[in-house]
């Protein structure tokens, strides 16, 4: 191996080590478990860390107070549900029955305290509701 290749190899190794460290640090700081409501309620190891939960907003007892920047609702899974208190700007697409992703942590009272709420209503891109075809006006 000539001098040149040795230098390149060392430079490459240094870059590799630096990047691995960055990736490790980034993952430590940036990763969040992405869970369905049922997975979350069954497995207590997730109850003491920040997670991202995906589920449907329950149709009952939804209290959205945009002016107070809070929303209280139940996040529904197939067989279980989690009470959620969200503080922040309520997205336009938030409504009962809507599919949402919330990020946050469970508190001592068993309420999921969240400060990130993303709505993902599939219906905004595709809707086949024929009844809506009728002109209401």
């Amino acid at each position, binding site marked *: 191996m000539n001098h040149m290749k040795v230098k390149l190899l060392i430079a490459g190794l240094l870059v590799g080590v630096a990047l691995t460290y960055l990736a490790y640090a980034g993952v430590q700081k940036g*990763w969040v478990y992405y869970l369905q409501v049922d997975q979350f309620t069954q497995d207590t190891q997730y109850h003491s860390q920040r997670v991202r939960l995906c589920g449907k907003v329950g149709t009952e007892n939804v209290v959205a107070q945009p*002016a107070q920047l809070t929303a209280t609702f139940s996040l529904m899974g197939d067989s279980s549900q989690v009470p959620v208190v969200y503080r922040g700007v309520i997205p336009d*697409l938030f*409504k009962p029955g809507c599919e949402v992703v919330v990020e946050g942590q469970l508190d001592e009272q068993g309420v999921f305290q969240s400060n990130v709420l993303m*709505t*993902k*209503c599939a219906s905004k891109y595709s809707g086949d509701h024929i009844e809506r075809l009728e002109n209401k006006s």
Partner: protein
Amino acid sequence: MIEPIGTYSLSLAVVAAAGGVLAAIMAFRFDSHAALVWARRLMLAGAGLTTLACGALMAAIINDHFEFTYVANYSERALPIGYKIAAFWAGQAGSLLLWAWILAAMTAVLIHNQKGSDPISRSGGKMGSDPFCFRERAITLAVMGGVNAFFAALILFAANPFITQPLPGTGTAVDGHGLNPMLQDPGMIAHPPTLFIGYAGFTVPFAMLIGALAAGRKDDAWILATRKWLLFAWLFLSVGIVLGAQWAYIELGWGGYWAWDPVENASLLPWLTGTALLHSIMVQQYRKSFRVWNATLIAGTFLLCIFGTYLTRSGVIQSVHTFPESPIGRFFLAFMGVCLVGTVILIVARRPYRLSDTALEIGFNREGAFLATNILLVLMTATVLVGTIYPLISVFFTGQPVSVGPPFYNKVVLPMALALLALMAMGPALTYGPSDAKRLFMRLRLPLAGATAATGVAWVMGLREPWSLAVTAITVLGIVNVFNDMLVTWWKIMRATKANPVSAMTRMIDDNHRRYGGQLVHLGMMMLMVGVAGSSLFNEKTTVQLKPGESTAFAGYTMTLEKLGEERRGNYTAVQATVHLAGKDGVTNTLLPEVRYYDKTEQPNSQVALEMGWKRDLYVTLAGWESPENGGTVALQAIINPLVSWIWIGGIVLTVGTIFAMTPKLLQQHPQPQTIPASQTEFATGK
């Protein structure tokens, strides 16, 4: 009438493209000129038929044919004509049709280009002097035809926009759902087609690569032919990404322009590898090296474009704005698999690259910088790719999908972007040939001095944040370097040619579009990075609750809520807050954030009030309100985004630079030879 036109022309387009592929393969196999001519005819017919299908869908949308499910889902009678056109690509089926049409149009342009310089057609139907060229063209066409056929078939069988449904009534009693209010924005008209032109544009270099590989080409001429397609595709992809970021900024109301969402990442991935390609093909062209690397990058970029379309359209990854899960995923996976395996087999087994690369000296020279640029860009691609599909990967290891958030990307990608910016800043001082650190340092003396001085001034003025100091230093280094290099060259030309300053400058720039266009692109990228750094490091955000008449102080402004009102306009009702703004410098302004309730959708739509400036933007949204009986509190979200305008300015500079790099020399290089009197000509030629 429209339904049969659409369906039949799509079906025939599949047949024509597939027939074209067969004919092109025959042309390759038997060196048959007639077969190549037929391949071209069939593919042009396919392009025509795809155009017809697009015309049918457009006619259906514009003429309110709500018996088409697609039209009913994305359009309505009251929609302005501009948004009716945009409704064409608002849904999955239509946007795939647009992709297919752009690809078909590019195939037609490619055929036109091939014909213009055909070695065969000039030699009267024979093969011509260059069998490589002939076979290469045949396979290039076959690949284009194959991709065309795939998209047309995909639309026909899995995402057909021409599916009809019985209507519940007749006449004007029937109306469509209308376009999603978030898509009723001028940015949304331009963003998807621009991205698709970029995506489809990267198909042509891929087809040329497969052609060159299959024909067993050993020279580097073909890589030159890919350059203009690469630049063209790269430009549209870049503009598409910036337009998308601007749309997100203005329309989504969360104050940002990039969220590392899978859909955004999908467009960034081929952009990163495409950027690497634009640099590494220069090494192949000038230094006869990086051959296998370039082949891999071209194929990788194309596959990432297809992957991006797949990711966006199939719903395989949970994202805030993907389309719902759909059957097209399997088609895409199969197609990507075939392309990947085929390309790998061709690169490995056929070995047209048996010619070894010229040995390069890698170090403090241009070759070294290009290599480093490529490594960084590919590492960034790998990072973003892994982060994007991490929910899929992690299921195998932990049994749970784990998603990585923006901190991961910011921590890993941004340092690499900064290193890339430093290489860009050194650009003009780097030369091909032997590595010479001392010479490079001498050429960088003045820019380095400038960067040190500027960083010192920034420090004295109170800037302490390390990333922002680094961006300042690198940006100033780059700007001084570009202008220093220009002035030195200009001075040399003036001394050597005794030309006047203006003509020396114009000639210098016009003689080297690639160099100065490229530097303009680099300056644009630096502006963009300054905007990203400023807005992400120093943004301030607050949510306030005010009653009419109350004031609050925020980031040097006094914000007073004057009133909250309701107003009926066109097809929506708006609730609007009037916010009076007073700056420290005595400047006042009124901002009107509002929430719109469109007649056709249940969801409200926030409209941001934006005070734009080259130093900072003030971004106000109306988050919520109570009726006067309940207290009348109004919640506002206010965000200060420093330097964000430089992202859009950088995008414009980048566009101008790329266009300049693509245009041929504008001025005659040498003065016209003086007219020689006829008598002298006769004398000179001995008549």
